[in-house]
């Protein structure tokens, strides 16, 4: 096994609710509408712009905030060179549609500059960087395989290799846009982010993760299949959801 990293914090926002690793309440990513997330449920200080963000940005930012709070890293004085890496299947496509709906009338004269700023899937990472003073590498990875681990593997490589002092990595997706039509696979929108730091002598971590050298993520020596399995394993949850369904990532 290659170099390990520690999971210092975990946060999520899904149809099952919002939560973080060190707070009891469980984790569930299931089909259904995403919750209306209130600023005060996620941020300890005022954030007036939060309610005006698009849904993709809100759930991603909420999960990142909860993960950082879980790791006790949400307050800061000086910028920190932490990486921000997210995997997404649909990205900000839903926001794209909302934006282009402002372009169609009046020959584009009423196009919304505020919405346009969020038609890049990495914009919510930029919001997180501003909010939490994170100046490390940042990007979104659109991964057709959809297991949600691509961002985690990249972030782990960065932390283990010294390219970033720590990383916030995870997945973020809203529901499959209606205009794409169904693809026959379960749709489980939501965002899950982990705070990763180099393995050391501290005891206040949730889990240690390793890379198996073939692009796989190891938890307690076992290769994990997807992000849901990883989180369930970190939280010591049973492998099946409450309805006997296996928890899997949308793909």
């Amino acid at each position, binding site marked *: 096994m290659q170099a390990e990293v520690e999971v210092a914090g975990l946060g999520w926002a899904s149809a099952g609710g919002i939560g973080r690793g060190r707070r009891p309440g469980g984790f569930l990513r299931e089909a259904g509408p995403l919750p209306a997330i209130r600023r005060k449920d996620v941020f300890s200080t005022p954030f007036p712009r939060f309610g005006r963000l698009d849904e993709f940005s809100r759930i991603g930012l909420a999960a990142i905030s909860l993960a950082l709070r879980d790791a006790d890293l949400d307050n800061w004085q000086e910028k920190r060179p932490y990486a921000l890496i997210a995997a997404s299947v649909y990205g900000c496509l839903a926001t794209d549609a909302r*934006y282009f709906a402002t372009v169609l009338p009046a020959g*584009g004269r009423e196009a919304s500059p505020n919405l346009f*700023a969020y*038609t890049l899937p990495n914009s919510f990472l930029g919001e997180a960087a501003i909010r939490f003073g994170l100046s490390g590498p*940042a990007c979104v990875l659109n991964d057709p395989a959809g297991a949600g681990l691509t961002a985690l593997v*990249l972030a782990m490589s960065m932390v283990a290799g010294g390219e970033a002092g720590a990383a916030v990595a995870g997945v973020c997706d809203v529901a499959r846009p209606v205009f794409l039509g169904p693809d026959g696979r379960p749709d489980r929108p939501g965002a899950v982010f982990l705070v990763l730091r180099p393995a050391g002598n501290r005891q206040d971590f949730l889990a240690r993760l390793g890379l198996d050298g073939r692009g796989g993520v190891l938890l307690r020596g076992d290769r994990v299949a997807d992000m849901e399995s990883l989180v369930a394993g970190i939280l010591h949850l049973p492998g099946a959801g409450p309805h006997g369904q296996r928890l899997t990532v949308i793909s």
Partner: protein
Amino acid sequence: MNEVALVAAQAITALGDSLEATWNGLLAGASAIRPLKRFDTAGYVSAVAACIDVLDDGAPSSRVHPLLDRLLQGFPPVPADAALITASTKWGIDGLERTLRREGRPPSTDMLAAGFPLEVGRRLGLARPGYNVSAACASSTIALGQAAARIAAGDAEVVLVCCLDIVSEFVFSGFSALSGLAAGPCRPFDKGRDGLSLGEGAAALLLMSRQRARRLGMPVLATIPGWGVAGDAHHITAPARDGCGLAQAIRAALLRAKLAPAAICGINAHGTGTVYNDLMELTAFAAVFGDRVLPLHSVKGAIGHTLGAAGGIEAAIAIKSLATGKLPPTTGFATAEDGVAGLVSAQALPFSGDILLATNSGFGGINAALIFERGQDAHAG
């Protein structure tokens, strides 16, 4: 750490249907920024862009496909075990435009950026699935850095990086709404610059470990000894005035390459032509390089701002610069603003040395830097 060799490069831009044609057009001081015919621009603050007109000839679903056809046609064979990283900000966004305009075609998954690596992998018969990097206008720069990191660490012997973005009304309207478009062709680093001009294009770059390149007999056109990525953590659309993120990215690249700033001989800058981006870059360069007169250029006055493809296209151009000892003219530049005199030129700039820096920055406050060193097989011809 393995040495990272760049063994093949191709670029398709509105200036030319190949890297060679693009390079020759740049040296001639030509500009491909012309009046737009693709959509009605009456409602926007600009009416020009650098489009590849042949892409409009009956594209079956999205213009990305004929552009990808042109990019991969004639590209050297890619080993089947190559890892793949693509870079695009909006991939087939014209597919979304058609769907929302209800133009009668079924919705296409071209509008999903994850389709880009799928398409390239399918066409080239690659065994390993890839992914797409989306990081605004630094996407392909970051993709190249990730590719280099994997080879350097021994996680891959070969990585193909493909990048592509098209001119769409979706993006054009947005930059117009943000007042980010120049009224006419953009003028990077010019005292009177007033915004950017959009362009479309694509690039493919094949990276290998030096050992693998030697075994395959591939030419080493350049090596990539350093890369760096950093964020401003300042604003979603505007760059940090002090250039903090870009300076941090450049320093990270220099540190990784184990080079002092004095080793850099020239800069392929982002140079979009907006007031704030160009000023931010000059500020960042001054922070890293001090009072040194370091020649720099931008290609965006010639080929437009190709968004996610910019870094990859500019990397291919950097290879040509290293082979010829010339930085191409900064088309559109005429009058230097304070502090730029002698750095930028509307003529080709000779430089001496073997190491260039390339930088790109984007929305979300992201900045990326790559260092290229002339390869043993780089030739001017």
